[in-house]
């Protein structure tokens, strides 16, 4: 086969085949979850023990096969180079990595198949951006022809795909935590004032994974979470009936404002694509994802579990990101004769690094862990996406070759995006200043 035919095959394998297989697998997972009204014990494989669950796994595995085929044919068609030389390829690789992690790590190793559907959603959004940013196969420009390209870009890709996974965990944590804390408050309000505190963890109780002690600031809003009971519903009226607890969790949250605000952020972000399709699809998908997470609240892991999953995922990716930034500096020294020049991409990487470092520090700070830290985690991911999409598409810098030729400058949308980011920062900061620390009415 000639190269153009191979490239065309690669493109077809990617869209529609891989895309549809993943989407089908995701639908199967969500379908199966919709009938699981109870959070599972870790290690319980019942979710996959049905034909729909198995079908989902098979579809995803088949999707991975076609995706791998697409990446390999693309690499060959582009002259035998690594398939992450432009945004189309990079987005595709990110999606591939997320799905691999979803299947191998999250489902098989961690035994959390209930999270796989949401991870697939994340992967599909990333791959959707690849479809929008399609670039014909071709060789790399001279600046990219070096081993540093393989090392630096693949390191960045690996850390980014782990951050996508962490972002899904963080988002799910925020929704579940919102539901859990509201429900706990509702239950408190129902009970007499004198029992306040009865259902809460004693000082020094250790949360499941993070192991950090529950500190005093959180005691007034969190139900008990200790190592052995992290996946069990908190004690109280509903603890005997997990089904009723799940239902109550859903009733505690109004999904519409939550989904709308998430969709608004996605809308602001999708303008960076300068594509009407993206601006319609992205908010719908993100808002829909939030809505789905709400609908499937009962079968999600507990907030404490999700929080520590997110923390561990970010703690895993952070050294990789650090290594990526350092190799980038070394490459810049090789290529341009300076290790750091505050080029927009470098600045973006620096910002991302700072934001995730901030997340890790916030986790160790009283009054910021929990939702405050999660807010910083979300913000860090938005910065990562900003660094990836925005810097490539509308800021001209030395890294511009990574772009797809979309023309630049979109000031009003920059304003909207900036305003939303600012809003998110203010929100995070004001949250920790005590606004959210609602004490039970006495």
């Amino acid at each position: 086969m000639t190269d153009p035919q191979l490239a065309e095959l690669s493109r077809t394998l990617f869209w529609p085949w891989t895309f549809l297989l993943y989407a089908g697998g995701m639908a199967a997972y969500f379908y199966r979850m919709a009938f699981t009204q109870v959070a599972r014990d870790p290690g319980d494989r019942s979710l996959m023990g049905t034909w729909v669950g198995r079908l989902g796994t098979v579809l995803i595995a088949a999707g991975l096969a076609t995706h791998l085929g697409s990446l390999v044919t693309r690499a060959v068609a582009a002259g035998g180079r690594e398939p992450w030389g432009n945004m189309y390829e990079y987005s595709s690789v990110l999606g591939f990595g997320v799905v691999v992690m979803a299947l191998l790590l999250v489902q098989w190793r961690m035994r959390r198949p209930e999270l796989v559907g949401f991870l697939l959603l994340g992967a599909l959004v990333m791959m959707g951006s690849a479809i929008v940013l399609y670039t014909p196969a071709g060789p790399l420009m001279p600046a990219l022809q070096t081993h540093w390209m393989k090392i630096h870009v693949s390191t960045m890709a690996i850390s980014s795909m782990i951050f996508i996974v962490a972002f899904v965990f963080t988002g799910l944590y925020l929704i579940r935590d919102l539901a859990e804390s509201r429900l706990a408050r509702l239950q408190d309000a129902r009970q007499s004032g004198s029992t306040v505190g009865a259902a809460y963890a004693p000082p020094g109780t250790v949360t499941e994974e993070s192991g950090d002690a529950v500190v005093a600031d959180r005691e007034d809003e969190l139900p008990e979470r200790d190592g052995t009971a992290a996946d069990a519903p908190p004690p109280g009226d509903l603890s005997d009936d997990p089904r009723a607890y799940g239902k109550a969790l859903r009733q505690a949250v109004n999904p519409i404002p939550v989904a709308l605000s998430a969709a608004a952020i996605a809308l602001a972000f999708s303008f960076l694509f300068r594509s009407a399709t993206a601006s319609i699809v992205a908010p719908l998908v993100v808002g829909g994802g939030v809505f789905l997470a709400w609908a499937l609240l009962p079968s999600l892991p507990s907030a404490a579990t999700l929080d520590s999953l997110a923390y561990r995922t970010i703690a895993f990716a952070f050294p990789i990101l650090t290594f990526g930034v350092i190799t980038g500096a070394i490459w810049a020294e090789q290529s341009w004769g300076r290790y750091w020049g505050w080029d927009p991409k470098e600045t973006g990487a620096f910002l991302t690094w700072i934001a995730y470092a901030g997340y890790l520090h916030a986790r160790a700070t009283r009054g910021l862990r929990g939702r405050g830290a999660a807010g910083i985690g979300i913000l860090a991911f938005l910065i990562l996406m900003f660094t990836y999409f925005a810097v490539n598409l509308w800021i001209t810098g030395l890294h511009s070759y990574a772009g797809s030729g979309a023309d630049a400058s979109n000031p009003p949308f920059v304003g909207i995006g900036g305003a939303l980011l600012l809003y998110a920062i203010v929100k995070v900061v004001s949250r920790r200043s005590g606004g959210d620390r609602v004490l039970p009415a006495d």
Partner: protein
Amino acid sequence: MPQPDRPVRQRPSAIPGPLETASLFWRWLRRMRTALYLLGGLGAATLLATVVPQEPNVPETVENWLEGTEGPGPTISRFLETVGAFDVYGSPWFTAIVVLLFTSLTACLIPRIRAFVRTWRYGQPPRARSFSAKPKRAYLTTSQDPDEARAAAREVLSGRRFRLRREEDAAEESTPMRADARGVVVPAPADAGDTTDGAGGGDQGVGAVGRSGAGVGARRPQVAAEKGHLLREGGSLAFHLAFYVILIGVVLGQLLVFRGQIGVVEGESFADTPVSYWANASGRWWQEEWHRDWVLTLDSFEVEWTETGMPVSFISHVTVEFPDGRPERVADLRVNDPLVVDDMKIHQLDWGWAVRMVVTEDDEVVYDRHVVLTANDDGYWEGAVKAPAADPQLGLDLVFFATAPDDEDGRPVPTVWPAPDAPLLLFHAYEGDLDMDRVQGVNDLETAGMERLTTTGLRPGFEVEVRPGTTVSFSELSRWSGFQVSQRPTDPVLLVGSVLIIAALFPALYAYRRRVWVEAERDPATGVTRVTLAGHAFQRPQAFDGEFDAIVAALSERLAAEPSPDPDVPADRPEVVQR
């Protein structure tokens, strides 16, 4: 946006004096939240620098913003200029953020380092007051006596590189170890200064058996052990200290750096001397006599394109000669593959076309030079010829197309195709005053005092008469290669700092602090010894689960012990049997 200081709030009526203010400021700097605000400030500054064009990088864009032809308009641009937004990294407030951040880091690290050293030297794992509050517990029965059981536990734990509490401390209640009282149940938070209250120390391998508790309360002999704290805290400290290494490297680099740019036409040379560079920037401590005076000749420059017009390779073939008689060096310079000459790095940075222009006036050559052409955004090349020796002075405004094939009528059609398939040079010719006394760009022709003679085009090897007696010939097409020559002796410092950052991140994130306690007691009724183990991990409890089980198994094997149920828990809730 900093929070109001808590100490101030506590004493609302008192107006703090200067010393108190300094101490309050210091305490404010020590807070983790302050550090996070400063990090956020640094992030916001760099974000600003991403969105607003930066003068040192793209001065033309900044000029366009100020003129209002680009960006948000002149009013906002003037405001941005006032606050230094066009040169964020050179602005005083950016320096202030960095200085504050490092001051805050120092303020956080000093007490942590002191506590770390104290723990390292004197620290003792605290006793457990109550085993039932620990998340991990295990119970064994053995026929060996309690002293032997504890000795075995100490051996098992020290074999696993736990730090053990000194055995005589078991009886010394008065030893001022704060962690004894509070560190047990409520683990110290990771905030600076609080982490290391006497925890984690203990000399290994001292003694074996504890004494029964005389003194305050009934102190049973207990084995207390801890692991992972020094590694985790040490990793965290090393990670943060690495930033001082980076800072030193960056600051020294700024002072000692030399960077110069030069373009060399094929067949020509340049020498590493202070005056030969097109542009150079050097640090305050760079000495001009540090130039090495070697001479670089560009023998040829190769560039290849794909069928789609994308460049695939740039290679400069160069020869370097040394004034001190060392043998010359022949080398190929590629993007990503710099040449190192006497500690100076030469990077392939840029390239372009050079046209050799000859101006003859009445058979006398008044101008013969390679004109270096620079790329224009629209895919063609620009340059200028200034011939002050001509009379009257002659100026040419050049535009070059690498490919401009003739159409059917024989008229050249310019394209943006990069390869030189049908080179065409177009120019306006002017005569008059070149105004050479004024400083002007090499490729900018000042035509205010000049009169246009003609506009014409030339293929390579052709000549044209622009006015009676004066001919312009395009005698040769060649290429020039742009090099950056740089020397930054501090790069190894940065590399060391980076390696330290990475190396320290792993223990800082993944090492985990855990404690294990063992008690052994003979049951007077049955005569067997009951051994109780308790464990607690401050981080990563799952990783500790397996480790605790392994410790229990190892101890059990040494004592030939049997597992036994938790005496404090009714038999129908066997949750204490650990997984």
